[in-house]
């Protein structure tokens, strides 16, 4: 399975949740598969999906899922200690780890080599860190939502992309409809 297969699989679970989605292909794929006002698409700023999601989770009560990638977490490594030390039990960080920088041409990341993001997250102090295979992402995610405990999921999958159009929605529209969904 590649990232877009995981997103297709978990779209029915994501539909009812607040989702912060990583820049580039992950956002474009989710937008194509199941666009929802509860989805906040990042059009810029690689690496900050986990930070934005934690900010949303710490300031309101609804469940927030940050969809991130291994490359993006590597870009913003400082996020993991911040998450570990600011526990929000309505927060789930889903790292789709395909061992590559998918949006830029599938260059390999260090997470696909010697570096284990699961081990790093644990070393940073994150308490509920679960590594799963791509096909188990849905049930792992649903269990994390039901547990009402802050959870980091590292879903291992294969590298690869599908052809998707870019998102042409205005950023302020994306932000405004997301904020309306937060308040609903």
């Amino acid at each position: 399975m590649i990232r877009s297969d995981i997103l297709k699989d978990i779209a029915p679970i994501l539909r009812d949740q607040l989702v912060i989605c990583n820049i580039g292909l992950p956002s474009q794929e989710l937008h194509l598969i199941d666009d929802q006002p509860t989805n906040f698409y990042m059009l810029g700023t690689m690496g900050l999906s986990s930070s934005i999601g934690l900010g949303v989770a710490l300031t309101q009560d609804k469940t927030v899922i940050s969809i991130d990638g291994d490359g993006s977490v590597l870009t913003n490594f400082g996020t993991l200690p911040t998450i570990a030390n600011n526990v929000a039990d309505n927060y789930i960080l889903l790292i789709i780890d395909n061992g590559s920088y998918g949006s830029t041409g599938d260059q390999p990341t260090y997470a696909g080599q010697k570096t284990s993001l699961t081990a790093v997250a644990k070393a940073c102090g994150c308490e509920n860190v679960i590594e799963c295979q791509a096909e188990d992402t849905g049930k792992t995610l649903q269990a994390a939502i039901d547990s009402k405990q802050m959870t980091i999921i590292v879903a291992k999958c294969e590298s690869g992309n599908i052809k998707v159009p870019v998102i042409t929605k205005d950023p302020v529209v994306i932000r405004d409809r997301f904020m309306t969904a937060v308040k609903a």
Partner: protein
Amino acid sequence: MTISDKIVADLVANDVEFVTTVPCKQLAGVIDAVEAEKSIYHIPSNKEDEGMGLCAGAFMGGKRPAIIMQNTAIGVTINTLVTLTQYYRMPLPMLISYRGELREPVACQAEMAVHTKALLNQLNIPTYHFHKESDVEEFDTILKYTFMCNKPVAILTDASFWGGYGDQ
């Protein structure tokens, strides 16, 4: 009331409830005052762009954010300021220690100081410079302005404003 207490009192009066900080020697007092204020969730960040991500999330979650950081951070946050804070039109008061100005003891700090205002100007970020202690009187109005216009706004605070570095 100290400058730090006045700054925190103004944050509270303007309903700022989420503050992220990256430390600077000049900012130690105000960071302590933020930490001590019960109505503010203080979340230290490891890098300033991470902090701006947290602030963007807090704003969308319904709370007013602020960031406290050093001016060297302008060098590492330009992409975030442009493609997140400005692009999605979000407010962000940035209380910034302006290192490398008069009374600065560390020569290297002057290197970033000479670029600070030029970069902020290039980014069309409204910028205020606190040089005298009495300049703090404007902080409340700057916060109101920031949340009125939904922009990042910079408040540069130099060593003279904070009372220098003591004996050198």
